[in-house]
């Protein structure tokens, strides 16, 4: 029976193997150069005092491969759609289950072995892919120090996603019994679950920490916990309060991405919409987007900061510290693996008891 499961899976497996090998070759050809460039230019830029151009140069390297490596986010979905959904659906659609289930192999054993063989392959493919992407991207990741920015693409969570996507695909195939609709349903359901999980579950996996302090402009924007370690924390939400402790921002003073909306006051000075007016006059441009390209001139920054200081604003951040990165990775992977096992169990039950 293992032979049959493998024989039916052989073509799909060789396609995946081919893609993995192509990616591995690409990474092996470019990765060592990246690491070398990192060691010789980025690591020494502080000594030479030319960090800005060196970093700009470094990030211009292998831009295409870097963009393509983001496609790793699609790997679990593809496994679910092309390996999971057809596993049983194609047998139902073509009627071949009638041949398969009347050999001397019980249905229970048939589905367990098919699930086992292809699930193992899915996990292996996703794991290898993530391993290669994580290794290749490490110089960039070391510079950006933003582990949560690439949380879904690195480490061990792709393994959980792949197992889940595969089991979800099988379940859809078992329920819908037709290949193409099952594939479509798998894609929709998987995307929905992933988005919902990222949006609502991941921030609450561990109870988040809170920071509150004076609102200051800093290099990386307002949504950053100041004075912390090496890597960026994951700020789940931020609130800015005026000196009476009332939340501002929603009424236009400070936008959702930290844009500070300062306008010339009617009677001189500068107005922060919805908060108040300070006596300082800000040299134009008066609207400073923190994330806009290029930092504002130094005199503008100082004037803005002085104006903001006069309002005694406070910011309250809810965040997951960078030190929890691996804990969150393990939790998320484990949850998706549990979901995968539950779906596989359901498929097993359905094939054994309900199908045909």
């Amino acid at each position, binding site marked *: 029976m293992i032979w049959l499961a493998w024989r039916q899976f052989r073509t799909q497996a060789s396609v995946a193997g081919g893609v993995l090998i192509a990616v591995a070759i690409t990474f092996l050809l470019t990765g060592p150069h990246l690491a070398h460039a990192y060691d010789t230019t980025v690591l020494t830029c502080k000594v030479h005092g030319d960090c800005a151009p060196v970093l700009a140069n470094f990030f211009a390297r292998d831009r295409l491969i870097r963009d393509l490596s983001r496609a790793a986010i699609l790997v679990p979905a593809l496994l679910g759609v092309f390996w999971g959904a057809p596993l049983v659906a194609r047998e139902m659609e073509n009627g071949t289950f009638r041949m398969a289930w*009347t*050999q001397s192999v*019980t249905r229970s054993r048939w589905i367990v072995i098919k699930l086992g063989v292809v699930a193992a392959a899915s996990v292996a493919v996703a794991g290898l892919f993530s391993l290669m992407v994580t290794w290749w991207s490490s110089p960039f990741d070391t510079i950006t120090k933003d582990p949560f920015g690439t949380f879904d693409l690195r480490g061990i969570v792709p393994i959980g996603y792949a197992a889940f996507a595969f089991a979800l695909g099988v379940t859809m195939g078992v329920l819908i019994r037709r290949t193409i609709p099952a594939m479509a349903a798998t894609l929709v359901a998987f995307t929905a679950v992933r988005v919902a999980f990222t949006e609502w579950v991941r921030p609450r996996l561990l109870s988040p920490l809170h920071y509150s302090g004076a609102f200051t402009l800093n290099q990386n924007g307002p949504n950053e916990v100041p004075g912390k370690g090496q890597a960026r924390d994951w700020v789940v939400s931020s609130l800015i309060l005026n000196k009476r402790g009332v939340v501002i921002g929603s009424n236009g003073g400070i936008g959702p991405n930290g844009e500070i909306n300062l306008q010339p006051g009617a009677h001189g000075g500068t107005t922060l919409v919805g908060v108040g007016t300070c006596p300082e006059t800000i040299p134009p441009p008066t609207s400073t987007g923190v994330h806009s390209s290029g930092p504002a001139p130094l005199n503008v920054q100082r004037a803005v900061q002085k104006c903001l200081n006069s309002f005694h604003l406070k910011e309250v951040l809810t965040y997951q510290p960078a030190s929890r990165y691996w804990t969150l990775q393990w939790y998320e992977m484990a949850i998706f693996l549990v979901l995968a096992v539950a779906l596989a169990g359901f498929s097993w039950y359905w094939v054994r008891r309900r199908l045909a």
Partner: protein
Amino acid sequence: MLSVDLPGGPSVTAVLEAEGLGKRYGRRWALSECTLSIPAGHVVGLVGPNGAGKSTLLNLAVGLLAPTGGSISVLGSLPAADAAQLGRVGFVAQDPPTYSGLSVADHLKLGARTNPTWDNELATSRVRRLGLDPSQKAGKLSGGQRAQLALTLAIAKRPEFLVLDEPVASLDPLARREFLQILMETVAEHQVSVVLSSHLVADIERVCDYLIVLVSSRVQLTGEIEDLLSTHHRLIGPRCDPSSLPENQHVIEESHSERQSTLLVRSDGPIMDPAWTIESLSLEDLVLAYMGQGRSIDATLWSKDDE
């Protein structure tokens, strides 16, 4: 042949026994209250109109379907109860499915890897005799070749009971004849009990020695074909009232013109009345008569339902 004497128990002489068997899809019953017994050591033809429940019955027999009601036992145990039971029953499905991406040789390997009782010599010699190219993908075979491949798989696992669900329905006449020919050879060679469903009486006549007519889940007629043909007659004579016939003659079908009556009767003894011209029946006449009878029973059931 298949009678197994269990210590202290009754001997098992039926390969299939169904009791009040039913299968429902949603609110529609594909088979309901079906009670029948298929004897061992025969090639049994299961005929009936479309929708009679033949396919459902056979799928229940091989365990592809689970009954909604009633009970079924095949070779003395539940269908598809375990691997051993699966190995004892061979199945060729309607429009026999094969894996289009797998070659003929792959299919034989599939059979070998999934059946401990696999007879590889039988399988390879059959494939050779059929002239199938082992490296040919099943998707490229003709319908007849695919059916032959499916039959090879079902036979080479050396089952005690072979179930064929309209195996030749989609084949052209030549392929159909070849298929049935090979089936007959196999049966003769390996002493296997067979049930074969078809709505074509000619196919049944060619290979079967036992007949079951199933109409709307009810068995209308069952018995060895030879006996059935010798006990059924067409009587043609002057117009009469069928109820005037002797006790041992049962009218299956009657038609009357002004002067003449034509009766299809089952008679347990010889027909003595010299007024009748006695004609023998073809199997097709017989089957059609009983199917018609089933339909009229059905019609009365319907009118009852409507009240």
